[in-house]
């Protein structure tokens, strides 16, 4: 079975919920972004999600979109990104590293080539503009035991939840109902819909579940303990960096880990 799934289950033995944190490769500079990753890995964050920037990140909100465009100023290359994060994965075996990007940069790189370049250290990939219907595109990754992390949303219809559960391997990434990254949706109804959907999913699969979009504090993480295995924090960390640089970033991570 999936290394990623196994890793998460093992960690969950001791932790009520795991933290998955997000860094953009090349923001604010390639050096600093690697520094952020190091910080996170040193603090033993369970999962590190590295976003390779794309010029048109339609699923991202203003904070990450802006950060991606700044990152692109530094002309990041996907090949180098994968070398760098493989090295980190090797250096910090007690965390898992995931790649996140949009379809086109990966498509241009080529999925066969990508499968090779992600191995051995990058466990999975998140592609927000690749719908589950297109799962066949990722065959080369699956063949190489790299887990596509499919997204699901609350109130997704049953047929599609099934499709996700059938193709899920290491992790299922559940995002809040509406909008783009950085927007929290904490209306009670939204929460109700979410738990209904999770209840519909869980009987269908034993793949671990991550919940993301809009989680910015330890409190919010506390709230979802018991519902999912992994809490994803993205924009909140970038905001911390924007406000206070690397040290604020580091403090933010600590406060989240305290959850």
């Amino acid at each position, binding site marked *: 079975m999936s290394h990623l799934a196994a890793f998460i289950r093992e960690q969950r033995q001791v932790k009520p919920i795991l933290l998955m944190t997000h860094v953009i490769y090349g923001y604010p500079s390639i050096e600093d972004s690697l520094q952020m990753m190091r910080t996170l890995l040193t603090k033993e964050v369970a999962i590190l999600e590295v976003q390779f920037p*794309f010029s*048109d990140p339609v699923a991202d909100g*203003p904070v990450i979109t802006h950060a991606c465009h700044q990152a692109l100023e530094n002309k990041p290359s996907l090949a180098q990104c994968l070398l760098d994060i493989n090295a980190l994965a090797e250096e910090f075996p007690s965390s898992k590293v995931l790649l996140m990007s949009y379809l086109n940069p990966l498509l241009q790189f080529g999925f066969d080539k990508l499968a090779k370049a992600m191995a051995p250290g990058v466990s999975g990939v998140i592609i927000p503009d690749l719908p589950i219907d297109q799962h066949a595109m990722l065959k080369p990754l699956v063949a190489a035991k790299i887990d596509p992390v499919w997204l699901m*949303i609350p109130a997704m219809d049953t047929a*599609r939840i099934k499709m996700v559960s059938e193709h899920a391997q290491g992790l299922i990434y559940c995002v809040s109902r509406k909008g*783009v990254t950085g927007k929290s949706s904490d209306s009670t109804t939204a929460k109700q819909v979410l738990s209904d959907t999770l209840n519909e999913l869980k009987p269908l699969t034993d793949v671990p579940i991550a919940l993301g979009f809009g989680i910015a504090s330890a409190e919010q993480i506390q709230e979802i303990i018991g519902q999912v295995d992994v809490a994803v924090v993205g924009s909140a960390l970038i905001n911390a960096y924007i406000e206070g640089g690397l040290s604020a970033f580091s403090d933010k991570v600590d406060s989240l880990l305290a959850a």
Partner: protein
Amino acid sequence: MSDQGYFGQYGGSFIPEILYSSQQQLLQHYQEAMADASFIQKVKQEMQQYSGRPTPLTYCANLSAQIGGAQIYLKREDLNHSGAHKMNNVIGQGLLAKRMGKKRVIAETGAGQHGVATALISARLGLECTIYMGAHDIERQYPNVFWMKQLGATVVPVTSGSQTLKDALDEALRDWTDSFEDTHYLIGTSCGCEPFPEMVAGFQSVIGEEVKDQAMAQIGAMPDKIYACVGGGSNACGIFLPFVGTDTELVGIEAGGSGDGVGEHAKRFNTDQARFGISQGFATKFLQDEQGQLAPTHSISAGLDYVGVSPILADLSDRGLVRMSSAKDDEVIAAFKQLMLSEGIIAALESSHAIAGGLKEAASLSVDQNIVINVSGRGDKDIFTIASALQDQPFNDFLQGYLNRQSNNQGAN
């Protein structure tokens, strides 16, 4: 026309999962509407009674004589309400949005033509309207923004990325992921996820259907060639599709811009700077770098500098059913002037690309051949660009005088 939203290897639906259900809803309503004769009738009626269709086919005796080759006819989309073919599409999608019970529409716009058309139809149909427009384009095209605002639309400047059309499209998609329950995304060209390319091309096909009848009535034969400018591809699809597979050759003219360097043009064909890619919800030829980052574009006409192109045209080109060519900025200005001086028709700079392409080729055709050039829009909107290109000093003096009067007035208040 499409196979599950695919046109050969192009098209498809590559959108965040969040949009899946609203896209499915749109797909279903669109198919139902197209099967509903009363809806088709309603669209036809609004096109006639609101936008003034059919637009005429104008024979250009002077221009044909000057060129000394084929007989030149113009399809006059510039006479549509709003001054461009964009109106055909917004009438169709606007009525569909009403039929779907949506209260609001959102749209991306580059030149602002689609933004104005959308704001017009929204006022006409009583829909709320939000237009996303690159901050950079707003600066260049403020008069269109002025009218959108006067029409009651909310115009949101998009300050991310290149601050042009593609970024406006990204931002509109982001809005849609947040608002799809009561909002229809009224895309302005034959691009995007299923069913947009097919739907927009379908509503625009009235152009080519009319040309068929008018060619029979006025020429007594189908045209030998048809020329259209290609930005996203909607006016080209509109005039081409009814002729695909006939003996009429279909020629698309892209923005050759100021040169062939990266960022100097908006050619998605006949350049190795563009290749198959997937973004903005669909697969097509995109201008992009080796990392797959979408590339910057340039054209003298804001309406043509789009980084992608209709998957329908990408496929027709692959299949040799449409030929793609391009015209450079200076050729475009020359063609704009030649048409204006010889026939008294002021074409949009976008359309002037088709004219440049058509005139260039007409010369080598015989006098008993006939070509139709699609004048997708009128050029008065381009007065600032033209006056600037011609460095018309009196125009500057007029503007300065206007500004002086303004500050005096404001002083007075």
